[in-house]
């Protein structure tokens, strides 16, 4: 290459004053928009929690009350209404269905990503096509089938249905995470003598663990909040938290404060799970975006 002579200036070139001010104002404007969006999304949750601490008389007023004497009486009444069994039913059906989904979706997603069959696109489309049918269109045959096998008002029914409901999403999500595993480390594992079992347990699953956590959390949210199957197919023994919440909407009227307290309590387990898994959730949902 030709010899280069001359001095090189290391000082950053100055921006014109107008450009710097415009950049600052732009940052402030976008920041304000982001805050506004966050407040709009968060406000219903905030209002729900706030209302849960109000006496019933202050729960639904015009104008709405921001200042009031807080009380825990609504929570006491919710507990006294017998929330325990509903909470347990939700927990059991959610945890077991999520575990089943992970056990079934992980090898399916692995096969579709690492060892795809010739018609893998059709297989994937088949999976996701099951989500295109509105649940309400399928509820009659499902109800009849569940009734005929004597499984109405039972937790295993919910477990099976929640598993079936979440499996397509889990397969799609897990497949995308498996696709992010560099092919070379699988080849390296093969050359190091790892068989399929060790390849999965020692190499692949640790890499996709954040994705696994994200998938599990999303499936847990869907199962926990599922209402239609629960209200249609359960009554006393297997009713879940969403069904319990609906109990506060009675012919006597809507008990806003109690409903808010019950909804807040129903949200707590999912919030705790999300808080614990938030790092994995962020990593899992952004996998692939950053190499």
């Amino acid at each position, binding site marked *: 290459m030709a010899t280069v002579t001359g001095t090189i200036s290391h000082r950053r070139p100055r921006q014109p004053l107008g450009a710097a001010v415009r950049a600052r104002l732009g940052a402030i404007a976008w920041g304000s928009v982001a805050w506004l969006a966050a407040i709009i999304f968060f406000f219903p949750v905030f209002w729900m929690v706030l209302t849960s601490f109000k006496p019933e008389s202050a729960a639904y007023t015009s104008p709405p009350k921001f200042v009031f004497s807080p009380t825990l009486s609504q929570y006491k009444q919710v507990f006294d209404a017998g929330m325990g069994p509903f909470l347990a039913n939700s927990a059991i059906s959610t945890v077991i269905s999520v575990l089943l989904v992970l056990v079934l979706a992980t090898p399916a997603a692995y096969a579709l990503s690492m060892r795809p069959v010739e018609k893998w696109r059709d297989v994937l489309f088949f999976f996701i096509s099951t989500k295109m049918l509105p649940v309400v269109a399928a509820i009659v045959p499902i109800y009849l089938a569940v009734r005929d096998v004597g499984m109405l008002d039972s937790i295993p029914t919910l477990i099976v249905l929640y598993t079936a409901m979440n499996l397509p999403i889990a397969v799609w999500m897990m497949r995308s995470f498996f696709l992010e595993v560099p092919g070379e480390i699988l080849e390296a594992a093969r050359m190091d003598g790892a068989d399929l079992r060790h390849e999965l347990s020692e190499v692949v699953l*640790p890499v996709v663990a954040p994705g696994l956590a994200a998938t599990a959390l999303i499936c847990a949210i869907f199962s926990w909040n599922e209402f239609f199957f629960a209200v249609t197919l359960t009554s006393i023994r297997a009713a879940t938290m969403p069904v319990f919440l609906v109990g506060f909407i009675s012919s006597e009227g809507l008990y806003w404060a109690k409903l808010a307290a019950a909804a807040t309590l129903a949200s707590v387990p999912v919030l705790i799970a999300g808080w614990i898994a938030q790092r994995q959730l962020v990593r899992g949902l952004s996998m692939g975006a950053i190499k």
Partner: protein
Amino acid sequence: MAGITYEHVSCRYPGSDTLSVEDLSLEIPDGEFMVLVGPSGSGKSTALRLLAGLEQLSEGRIDIDGRDVSGVDARDRDIAMVFQNYALYPNKTVGENIGFALKMQGVDRAERDKRVREVASMLAIEEFLGRKPRQLSGGQRQRVAMGRAIIRRPKAFLMDEPLSNLDAKLRVQTRVQIAELQQRLATTTVYVTHDQGEAMTLGSRVAVLKDGTLQQCAAPRELYENPVNAFVAGFIGLPQMNLIRLPLSDGRVRLSDEDLPLPAAVVRDATQRGAKEVIVGVRPEHVTVGESSSQGVAAEVVLVESLGADSYVHASLAGTDATFVARTEGYDSRQRGSNVRLRVDPQRIYGFDAATEERLGVSEHQVDHDASQPAPASVSR
């Protein structure tokens, strides 16, 4: 430690019309450092992956230590590979990465840890044993990848462009370390690179590939001084050989406004083939640059590259579109646009068939080989 043989190996990827590797026959004796070199798409990585068992043979067979491994899975071939991007397990520490193969073999923890420390000491990476790969620099990761291969004491090392992600200085340092390590361990090594400089300095023999076929396999010096065709001549050597297609008339060629005296053997061979054109090749160090008043081919300087000890003068030949590169000593102060005369050493002119690109006038002494080396594999058609 083991010899490796490729016997008429071909590979076609599913759905592809062309062969990635075509009829490759190559013998690599025990302990040799063989370099596979070629441009992108030449089939060198495919040839390596066939040896590793990561790709399927379409035809032929591959032997390792006298055993046909054509149908044997990669995990059972007892060879270790260093990948271009290192392929370290991201969730394992450096120590776990290095010891992983021993874990798969069922070696107990104490013995595993002992061997990991030995290898880490050899590669000066003991202080990194507790770190994860993402906490290491490129050069450190490369050494961990080497350690992972070494610890297995395999029959052969396979290396797929392991230095391509390092900066220039680190590449040179690591190249030396790899060469020293290979000599110390005396393990058969097959090394793939697109860098002909790396190939020439590392390999005891170098196999040049193009479009999936083996062009020539020989010691670096042999490749440099006796290329079998224009491709090898142009690929080996930096800067590359000056190659120009010229009409042949009455046994003579004309370079710009000057007659160029070709070696008699080249003329004889070209005449026998009825060639109307030849490709003339001259290495930059055999082209002398003189002032415009001196004898030689008229040319105009287009670029001077001063590299310190040497300079390379790029000059456009008068009346042609061709540019020749000439090496001069020290700092060359000629400016772009200056007129010069280029003189070519007539003893150092190569001739190649313009149709087949095969070397013309290859004399008997140039095809003799040292009896202790394996005969070179099939050359280009």
